[in-house]
């Protein structure tokens, strides 16, 4: 039920979905202790997952989840950009194309229309691309899923007119602050932490597994040096290509590294 315009003076928040699993939007709903405070501080103008109510744009903050994979969506994002003061891409799909960007690595000729009996019913693009390939993005919050506390930080920063504290350094910083013992050095377990963007709190090493890079590349990631270390640890090229080709496969540094190994023996 759309109402023509809002009478509230609070900043208007809109949440948009593209090709995604919904996990990043869910992170906002997972702020169980803070959700009502958020609803107090902003006007939730458009958030179909949470409410039927719709308030027209323009919006002060649009959170966009999901990647662009259809011609229809490639159009829709432009309208959203026009209506938004700040547009923030949240999650690996929106910031890097997501796991569904694995299609980007396939030669289209290798595909066979296997199960869709009526392929003419489907419209899809050859590639899955992040929002930034289509419109200017004011901020990218990396993560698969994003960290709900970082989302709150982002909203808080916007409301308080300050830069968000979302450091782009490595997961190693979080690991060492936490006091976790490095799984790679102490156990030979391959870990992408040294090239991965912080934000998750270094969960995987705390659970005795190596980081698998779901937050995407950090700034200045030296993937080549890390891949060399993986080789020394006994991983083969195919495995290394797979390490760099998951949820942020299409992010430049990871894409380059996976491509460098995929045909090596």
């Amino acid at each position, binding site marked *: 039920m759309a109402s023509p315009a809002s009478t509230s003076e609070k900043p208007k928040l809109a949440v948009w979905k593209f090709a995604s699993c919904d996990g990043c939007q869910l992170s906002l709903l997972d702020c169980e202790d803070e959700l009502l405070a958020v609803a107090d501080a902003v006007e939730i103008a458009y958030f179909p997952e949470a409410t039927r109510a719709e308030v027209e744009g323009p919006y002060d903050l649009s959170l966009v989840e999901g990647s662009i994979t259809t011609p229809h969506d490639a159009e829709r994002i432009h309208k959203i950009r026009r209506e938004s003061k700040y547009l923030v891409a949240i999650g690996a799909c929106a910031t890097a194309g997501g796991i569904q960007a694995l299609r980007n690595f396939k030669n289209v000729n290798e595909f066979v229309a296997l199960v869709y009996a009526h392929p003419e019913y489907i419209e899809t693009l050859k590639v899955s691309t992040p929002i930034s390939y289509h419109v200017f993005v004011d901020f990218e919050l990396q993560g698969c899923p994003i960290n709900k506390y970082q989302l709150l930080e982002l909203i808080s920063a916007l409301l308080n007119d300050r830069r968000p504290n979302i*450091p782009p*350094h490595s997961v190693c910083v979080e690991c*060492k602050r*936490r*006091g976790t013992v490095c799984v790679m050095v102490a156990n030979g377990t391959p870990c992408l*932490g040294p*090239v991965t963007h912080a934000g998750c709190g270094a969960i995987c090493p705390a659970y005795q597994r190596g980081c698998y890079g779901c937050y995407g590349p950090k700034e200045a990631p030296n993937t080549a040096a890390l891949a060399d270390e993986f080789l020394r640890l006994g991983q083969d090229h195919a495995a290394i290509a797979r390490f760099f080709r998951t949820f942020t496969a299409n992010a430049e540094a990871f894409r380059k590294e996976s491509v460098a190994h995929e045909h090596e023996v």
Partner: protein
Amino acid sequence: MQTPETVEVAATEVPRDGQDSPHFSEDAVLLEADALQALIDGLRDDGYQVMGPMVRDQAVVYDEIQDVEALPSGWTDEQAPGRYRLTQQDRARFFGYTVSPQAWKRFLFPPERRLWQAERDGTNGSFHVTTDEDDPPRRAFLGVRACELAAIAIQDRVFMEGPYVDPVYAARRRNVLIVAVNCGQAGANCFCTSMGTGPQATSRFDLALTEVLEDDRHVFLAEPGSDAGAALLDQLPTRPATDDDRAAARRVVEEAIDSVERQFDTDGIHDLLLDHLDHPHWETVAKRCLACTNCTLVCPTCFCSDVEDRTDLTGQTAERWQTWDSCFTLDFSYIHGGSVRDSVESRYRQWLTHKLASWIDQFGTSGCVGCGRCITWCPVGIDLTEEVEKLRAAVTTPDSPSTKDGGDRS
């Protein structure tokens, strides 16, 4: 900011290891190994939380201990660049491990702490600040190595001896009782002898123990280093150390000295590094460096921190937090519009030159204590001693291949 009361610590010299034969205090006594529990109990009875070594997650880490059973008896470690393996040995020494992945600094200079909170007063723009009541627990550090003592001394100088004293560090430091333990063997990455910081603890401890495990006995030679240490020993079943006891302790320390594999030539290192800031070798090492920050975060002397303001959604309350930071991050060198050290090369150079050269200008000593952690815990095993050697070789023999093509990768 108020200056705190003077902290009672000894002079600021970094303890120098005797390259002569190891020497032990006149007041040394002998303690049976099974009295170690009584030592721990005595500390706890005096109100100290005892932090000591234990095995967890395939390494020896420091955490609270209450029983000797928690100590890593029979464990040692094998270290190499980028590699650490906990292994068992026949000798059931309590302190047979070498260097843990963690430094004691995490208890004195915590990874994260709140500095103050602020709350708005109405809507006129003013606000009031409340500082947390800082009441750090009394802690006893059990198992501090000589290199770690040196590192604590260095951080004491950084945090307490300049014009601005860090009150939180000072308060924690004041509440710490140090039980040093001399090394009986060197780790493969250790080079304390080259840095003059070990392996024997000679000062700045409350109590120093040397673990002697021989066929017929398992004892500790215990040296008091302060009134508190002496008082602790008085509560325990000890007897004065004999010449034999001292000889046995000497053998332990000598074994440590002899087992040091790594030598680091620090001659003229200050000018070597600072006069060659544009050398192509920096680019060579940068190709391997991940800028992951591990070296700085395991280093017991690194002291850099970041300060960030956190707000709630309404803007009514804010908090200022201090967290560990590292010169290897992009944001570290951010000043008004951009980061000054964009390239990994510039960051690595910054770290190495600060640690080994400009630190001397700032604080009068090297920033490095030769513990080798940065070598072990670097995911790709970059060895700073090797990098300095390569640079030295490259600049002293100008015709060597290193200067022409930037050096080779080992």
